[in-house]
């Protein structure tokens, strides 16, 4: 009984978590796969393979589009994450960088060469949280020495301040000689 239950769970869950979901449309079937786990900021490869439903041969030149249901400013809408064309093996690899943790449904549209209509298939991805910095700006100027120029300027100023502080200590040490305490 337990073996039967385990087999049932495996049949239902393995395709879901391993990301292998066969689909069939337009005389072509698509098989999607993503890694079992993904992390925010780390690239994620989605592989889509399209094969002919008639003879099982790979379909070359089919277009694949991946969309993700995003929410921004209270609006929910599908956002295109990437597009690709299948190669000789009928495979299109799409590189995605997940930005939000949680379980996400990816919607994949594909159409065969010469066809206007597209079929759709979906797959679920589990993205775990991380503290990776997701975006680094490449804009701006690059100065020779980078921040070390700034650090050395600031360091020089503080060295001068230190020299003045030592001067004050010197004043305190030279207080024994007779003199007047004011300008008069």
């Amino acid at each position, binding site marked *: 009984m337990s073996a039967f239950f385990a087999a049932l769970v495996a049949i239902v869950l393995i395709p879901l978590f391993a990301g292998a979901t066969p689909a069939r449309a337009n005389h072509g079937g698509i098989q999607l796969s993503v890694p079992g786990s993904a992390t925010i900021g780390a690239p994620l490869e989605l592989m889509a393979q399209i094969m002919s439903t008639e003879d099982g041969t790979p379909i070359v030149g089919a277009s694949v589009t991946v969309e993700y249901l995003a929410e921004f400013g209270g609006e929910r809408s599908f956002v295109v994450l990437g597009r690709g064309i299948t190669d000789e093996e009928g495979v299109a690899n799409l590189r995605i960088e997940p930005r939000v943790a949680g379980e996400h449904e990816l919607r994949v549209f594909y159409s065969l060469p010469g066809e206007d209509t597209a079929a759709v298939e979906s797959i679920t991805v589990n993205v775990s949280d991380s503290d990776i910095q997701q975006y680094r700006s490449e804009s*701006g100027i690059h100065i020779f020495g980078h921040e070390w120029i700034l650090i050395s300027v600031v360091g020089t100023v503080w060295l001068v301040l230190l020299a003045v502080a030592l001067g004050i200590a010197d004043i305190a040490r030279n207080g024994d000689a007779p*003199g007047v305490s004011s300008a008069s």
Partner: protein
Amino acid sequence: MEAVSGYYERLVHTAVAPIVHTGRLYYVWVAFLLAIIAWGVYAYSVQYREGLVVTGMRDRILWGLYITNFVFFIGISHAGTLISAILRVSQAAWRTPVTRMAEFITAVALAVGGLQPIMDLGRPDRVLNVFIHGRWQSPVIWDLVSITTYFTASVVYLFLPMLPDLGLFRDEMRKRGSGRRARLYGLMAIGWTGSPGQRRRLGLAITIMMILIIPIAVSVHTVVSWIFAMTVREPWDSTIFGPFFVAGAIFSGIAVLIVVMAILRKAYHLEEYIQEKHFVYLGYLLAAMAMIMIYANLAEYITTGYKLNEDSEFHFRQLFAGRFAVLAWYYFVGGLLLPPLLILLPFTRNMKGVLVAAVLVVVAMWIERYLIVVASLRVPLMPYEPSNYAPTWVELSLMAASFALFALLITLFVKLFPILAVWEIAEEHEGRAEEAVNSERAPSGGRAAPEPAGGS
């Protein structure tokens, strides 16, 4: 020389008076300021408990009174050390009664200004993030570095010329039999006896500091401006923000110095040392800075107004004819045009005229900072309805407490430290007396150059 000795005795008496005599009015004033600060502490406790939601700041206009006050106080800190250093470097003979007040305004304004971003954070422990996660590429880090450097340099620059006066106060307190005070001033005077070696070292240290402090002060307000100008937002997208902010800081700094000088002159009867000519000379500096500010404003608004892209048009409309028109026009007319007129017209070129001009400038420069922060943030970045900002009682209370803290620190400073640079004023007076004697003996003789600060 008897006249010189009498002048010196009066000078010492005047300088020591605030420390040895405390009137009832002083306590009332301190209690009043403490009450405002206590209310501010309560308001802050509400903000700490409830979060920034108790302020008028939201996701679109995310800076309000706190950052306005931050820029304002950092600006008036230029009263200060920068003006004092410029006057010392240029050997302006009239500077001596002015410099001490200017220097302590700097230290106090920086201390109060530094509190403002902490209030703005909501949770003060987030300050640690600047140290833990700070990046050298960030203007926030530049700000932190330059302000802490300026504060340290300002305190050193305040302390150095005060050293002979602290020694003088130590001796005066001994003479008066006040052992506790004599010990306190003895500690602060670090063994100052006025020996030639000490005077030489002091002169050198002051000379180094007065040269060093000028670029540091310029860097501070340049970097404060870059907090805005390094952000992609239309009204802040300006190449002249750095010099514009530095000019504005000196402008507001001189104005605050004039106001503080007038109050302390009246409160501590300093009329013999802080004369009308000092107000008029500072008034000339204020008028000159007003001209620079007018030029900077013209340069800024004409170049952006000529091109007038969509965001600029929105900003111009709200500034000149919309929501902020009253404030903006006060700034242009009351803060930039009227003060130089008051100073330059012969019948208002006196202490009262300069004081009125200074008050107008102080108010106008606070408004200018409010417009830079709040009006600029109101320009929508995306096609959404512009949001509005109105400070809540919490922000207004904390603002009142900040100004009360500024006044309290000055009040306490005056009570503890020499309000006048006694030795410098005495040296200047002696120099003038000698000059008068020399000119009597040889009327055709040339005028001797003033002694450098710190004197040999």
